[in-house]
């Protein structure tokens, strides 16, 4: 390389990062950290699996308790007692308990409080209330 070339390339060696660049980078790193702390960034597959299991559990319970009717099925007479035997109901409850335990385990690992609250408390409570209403002997039949 000639002295002229060396002189020509000098501007490349003089380039400096803009003022405040370090702070800008550190702020971006902190923001990146914060965004990656959300469950969907950390364990997206586990969360989708948990949501799927939860939904499947709810649908299974609703199907077993007769709250979701297949197309074409006529509604039962309003005064008819529930046709779901106690044995099936117990099994559904066991399956639901198992599903929720698995779901809770997955969510525990992802340490997300909001989702844990939903799957630990709100969802089981809602399903329990729904089951109680369905099999409440004092409750009037569905229309």
């Amino acid at each position, binding site marked *: 390389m000639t002295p002229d070339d060396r002189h020509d390339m000098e501007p*490349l*060696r003089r*380039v400096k*990062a*803009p003022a405040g*660049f370090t702070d800008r*980078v*550190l702020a971006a790193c902190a923001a990146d950290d914060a965004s990656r702390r959300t469950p969907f960034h950390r364990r997206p597959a586990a969360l989708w699996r948990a949501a799927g299991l939860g939904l499947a559990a709810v649908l299974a319970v609703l199907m077993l308790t007769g709250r979701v009717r297949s197309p074409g099925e006529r509604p039962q007479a309003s005064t008819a007692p529930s046709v779901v035997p106690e044995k099936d109901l117990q099994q559904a409850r066991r399956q639901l308990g198992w599903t929720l335990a698995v779901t809770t385990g997955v969510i525990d690992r992802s340490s997300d409080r909001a989702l844990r609250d939903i799957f630990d408390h709100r969802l089981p409570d809602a399903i329990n209330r729904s089951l109680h209403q369905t099999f409440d002997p004092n409750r009037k039949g569905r229309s």
Partner: protein
Amino acid sequence: MNSDLQEFADVVRAHQDAVYGLALATVRDPDDAADIAQEAFVRLWRRRDEVAAKAHRPWLMKVTRNLCLDHLRRRTRDLRRMGPHDPEALDRVPAPADPESILPDDFDRALGALSPRARSLVSLHYGQGFKLDEIAAMLGMTTGAVKVALHRARRTLRQSLAPARTLAGHGQENGS
């Protein structure tokens, strides 16, 4: 600020001029260069446990160069949408003539005569002081290929800078 981030601040300070310099020489736009340099550091931050301290600079250089080429490729794609298809457009991306560029105008114009890949090689070698074999290892090229590319780039730069040099010479003669 947590201790990790405080330690990382030293890393940023140590390499920011080199990373920004490479980005600026390659994309020739100060704003884009700053964004790209920032993105390179954020990526290093994410992988701070995997990249050894002594490998920081080569790692940053490689990532920055790739980010620059991706950026220019995206811009070329946008330009292609507006005009007829040109497969060699990447190597002739019209670099924006930015008055805020911190490179001198004549040098910036001369850099514009090079392809983005050649600009990054010139910056790595002449700007950041990497040796030919270091660049070759960093970019997965042979040392010979780097040498040839740099030789061509230097010749093109010399031709582009010749009128400016002549004018400067005249200016000096007139001034003396």
